[in-house]
C-alpha cells in the first residue's frame, strides 16, 4: 500500500515537472547547445535567443554570430505558424519571449505596447545608425512622437510594375522598361494600355490586372498617408483613399481584371498560363513569380510603377524587455543588419536592403535570367529611394481588411461600388469604437 502511494506521488510529480518544464525550458538550458565547458562556472558566456520566420534572415549569417561574438551563444529559433500571435502570447505572459525578435510590417501594432521592447534610442541608435538606413523605413519602427524606436530595419519591399514583355509587344505597347515607364506613367495611362492590350489579344483572353485588391493596395501605398494620421485618427474616408478605391473600381468596370485572388493555386496557374499581363508588386514578388510561373521564364520585365513608387512589406528586428542582456543583443542586431550583411542577404536570399549605401555595389545590379537578363535591382533601388514615408499605425489591419473585403465583394459578387464604399466605412467606424 505504501509503495503504491509512493509510486502515485512519484507519477504526479513527474507529470507536474513535465508541465512546468514546458514553460521553464528556456531558463533551464541556458548555455546548453554551446557544448560542455561553459555552463556552471562564472557564467561568462551569455545565451541570447532569437525568433525569426523562414526566409527572413540568412541562416548562415546567424551561425556566424557565435564566431563574431565569442562571449555570446545565439540560439536562433525558426518559429512557424502564426508568428505574431505567438509573440503576443509570450509578451503577455511576461516570460518565454526571446531576447531578439523579428517583426514583420505589422511592427506598428506594437506601438501601444512599446514598453515591451527595448528603446533602441537608449543605445544610441539614432546617432550611430540612422544615417545608414532609408529614412522612411527607419521611421516605420519609431513611434509617432519620435521618442521610441522598437526595432531596427531589416529588408524592404520597394514596388515596381511587373509586365509580360512578349504580350506587350504583341499588343503594340512599349516593351523596353524605360519606354514603359515613360509611356505608362499614371494610373490612367495604365488603364488605357490595359484596354489596348485586351482588345488586341481578345482571342487569348488575357487580362491586364490580376485582381482589383492589388490595384487598391498599390495605389494606397503610393501616398504619404494611408488610413490613420500620426495621432491615430481615422482618415481613410478622405480623398486619397477614395481615389485609390475609385481606381480599383474602374479596373473592375472596364473589365480589365482577371479576378484571381493572390496567394492561391489559381493565381499561380493564371501566371503560368499567361492569363495576366501585368501587376504592381514588391521586390519579393520576384521569387514568388519565379516559383509560380516557371513556364514564363524570360518573358517578364519590370518597370517603375505607374502612379509612383511604393513599398509593401519588409521586416524589422527588435529586442524585448524580457531580455537580460539588451546591450549585447543590441550589438548583435546592429551587426546582423549592417550594410555589408544586408548586401550579402540580397545575394543569398533576395532580401532587399534597407541601407542605401550598398546600392552602388556591383553585386546589387546583376542580370536576372528569369526576367530576360534585366538588371532588375536598378529599378528597385530607384523605387526604394522614392518611397514616401507613410504612417500605418496600430489599427491598420482593421481599416485595411474592411476595404479589401468590400473590394472582393465588388469583384466576385458584383456588389454596387457605392454601397460597398459606405459599408466599408460604416464597418470601420463601428469597429474602431471597440
Amino acid at each position, binding site marked *: *500500500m505504501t509503495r*503504491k*502511494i509512493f509510486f*502515485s*506521488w512519484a*507519477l*504526479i510529480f513527474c*507529470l*507536474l515537472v513535465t*508541465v512546468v518544464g514546458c514553460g521553464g525550458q528556456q531558463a533551464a538550458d541556458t548555455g546548453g547547445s554551446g557544448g560542455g565547458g561553459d555552463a556552471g562556472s562564472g557564467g561568462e558566456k551569455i545565451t541570447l535567443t532569437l525568433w525569426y520566420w523562414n526566409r527572413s534572415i540568412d541562416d548562415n549569417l546567424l551561425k556566424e554570430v557565435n564566431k563574431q561574438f565569442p562571449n555570446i551563444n545565439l540560439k536562433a529559433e525558426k518559429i512557424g505558424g*502564426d508568428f*505574431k*500571435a505567438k509573440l*503576443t*502570447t509570450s*509578451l*503577455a505572459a511576461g516570460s518565454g519571449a526571446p531576447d531578439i525578435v523579428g517583426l514583420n510590417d505589422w511592427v506598428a*501594432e*506594437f506601438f*501601444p*505596447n512599446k514598453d*515591451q521592447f527595448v528603446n533602441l534610442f537608449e543605445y544610441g541608435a539614432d546617432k550611430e545608425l540612422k544615417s545608414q538606413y532609408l529614412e522612411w523605413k527607419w521611421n516605420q519602427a519609431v513611434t509617432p512622437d519620435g521618442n521610441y524606436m522598437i526595432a531596427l530595419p531589416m529588408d524592404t519591399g520597394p514596388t515596381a510594375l511587373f509586365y509580360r514583355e512578349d504580350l506587350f509587344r504583341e499588343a503594340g505597347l512599349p516593351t523596353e522598361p524605360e519606354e514603359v515607364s515613360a509611356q505608362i506613367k499614371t494610373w490612367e495611362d495604365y488603364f488605357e494600355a490595359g484596354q489596348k492590350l485586351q482588345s488586341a489579344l481578345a482571342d487569348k483572353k488575357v487580362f491586364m490586372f490580376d485582381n482589383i485588391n492589388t490595384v487598391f493596395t498599390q495605389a494606397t501605398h503610393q501616398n504619404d498617408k494611408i488610413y490613420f494620421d500620426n495621432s491615430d485618427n481615422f482618415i481613410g474616408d478622405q480623398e486619397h483613399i477614395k481615389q485609390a478605391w475609385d481606381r480599383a473600381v474602374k479596373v473592375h468596370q472596364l473589365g480589365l481584371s*482577371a*479576378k*484571381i485572388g493572390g*496567394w*492561391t*493555386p*489559381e493565381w499561380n*496557374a*493564371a501566371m503560368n*498560363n499567361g*492569363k495576366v499581363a501585368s501587376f504592381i508588386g514588391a521586390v519579393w514578388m520576384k521569387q514568388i513569380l519565379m516559383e509560380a510561373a516557371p513556364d514564363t521564364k524570360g518573358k517578364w520585365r519590370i518597370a517603375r510603377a505607374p502612379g509612383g513608387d511604393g513599398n509593401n512589406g519588409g521586416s524589422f528586428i527588435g529586442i524585448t524587455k524580457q531580455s537580460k542582456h539588451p546591450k549585447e543583443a543590441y550589438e548583435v542586431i546592429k551587426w546582423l543588419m549592417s550594410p555589408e550583411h544586408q548586401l550579402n542577404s540580397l545575394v543569398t536570399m533576395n532580401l532587399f536592403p534597407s541601407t542605401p549605401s550598398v546600392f552602388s555595389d556591383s553585386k546589387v545590379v546583376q542580370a536576372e535570367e528569369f526576367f530576360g537578363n534585366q538588371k532588375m535591382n536598378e529599378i528597385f533601388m530607384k523605387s526604394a529611394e522614392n518611397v514616401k514615408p507613410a504612417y500605418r499605425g496600430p489599427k491598420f*489591419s*482593421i481599416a485595411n*481588411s474592411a476595404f*479589401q*473585403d468590400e473590394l*472582393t*465583394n465588388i469583384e*466576385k*459578387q458584383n*456588389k454596387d461600388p457605392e454601397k460597398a464604399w459606405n459599408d466599408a466605412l460604416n464597418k470601420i467606424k463601428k*469597429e474602431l469604437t*471597440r
Partner: protein
Amino acid sequence: MSNLELATGRGRKQTGKYGSLWREIYRNKVIYLFISPFYILFAIFGLFPILFSFYLAFQKWDGIGEMQFVGLDQFRYLITDTVFWKAIWNTLEIWIYSTIPMLFFALVIAFLLNSAFLRYRNLYRIAYFLPNVTSIVAVAIIFGTLFGNTYGFLNFILTSFGLEPIEWLNSRFWLKIAIASMIVWRWTGYNAIIYLAGLQSIPTVLYEAARIDGASTVQTFFRITIPLLRPVILFTVITSTIGGMQIFTEPQILVGNGGGPNAEGMTIVLYLYQQAFTKNLFGYGSAVAWGLFVVIAVFSFINWKIVQRPES
C-alpha cells in the same frame, strides 16, 4: 479492482454531507491519486482557459497592455454584430450539409465492413480512417486546387462535359458545399470506425435469426442494425454537432481569415480567431466564444431530444 469496489460501496453508504465527502476522498486517496493526472491537466489546460475567457469577455484587451473593464459592452456589440449572426448561419448551413451525408455514409460503410463475406477487412478499415489522420492543411490545399474557379479540377471536368463551370469559391451556396465536402471526406471514416465498434457489439444471433426468417439485407439494416445502434448514433450526432460548430481550418485555408467573398465562408470560430488574433480584440473574441458556447449547448440539447424521443 477490489479497492475500487470497496470504495464505491462505502461511498454509497455515506454520501450526503460535504464533510463526509472529503473524508471519503481522504480515505480513498490512492484511487483519487490514480485519477488525478487527468484532473490536473484539465485544470491547467481546460478549466483555467475557460474561466479566463469568461473574465476576458467583460474586458477590453489588446493581448498585452492594460485590461479595461467594460461590463456587458462586448455582449451588447455581439448581439448587434451582423457578421456574428452571419457566421452562426453559415456554420449551421455547413454543419447540415456535412453532418447528414457524413453520418449516412459512415453507417453504410460500417455496415459493409461488418458483413461476413468481406475480404481484406483491415485494409479497408485503415483506408477509410486514413483521411482523418492526414494533415488538414495539406487537405485544404488539395481541395483548393479541386475547387479553383478558373483552373480547378472540378470545373475542368464540368467544362469538358460541356457544362457551365461553377464559381465554387465565390458563390454563397457552393462555397459552403466545398467546405462541407472537406469535412465529409475527413470524418466519414472516423465515424464509420465508431459505428463498426457498435455493430460488433450486436449479437450475431439476431442477424442469423433474421436470415432464417428470410429478411433481406436492407430489412436487417433498418430493423436490427439501426435500432440497436441508437446509442452509438446519438454519440456521433452529438460529437459531430460539437465538431461542426467549431469548423475553422477548412474555411480559413480555403478562403482566408476574412471568410471569402461577402464572408460567406465565415464560421463562428474563424470569426473568433480573426477578432482575437488578427485584430487583437481579445475581449471581443472571448465574447464570441461564449456566444458559441450558447449555440452549441442549444443544439446539443435539441439533438439529444430528437435522437432520444423514439425510445421514451
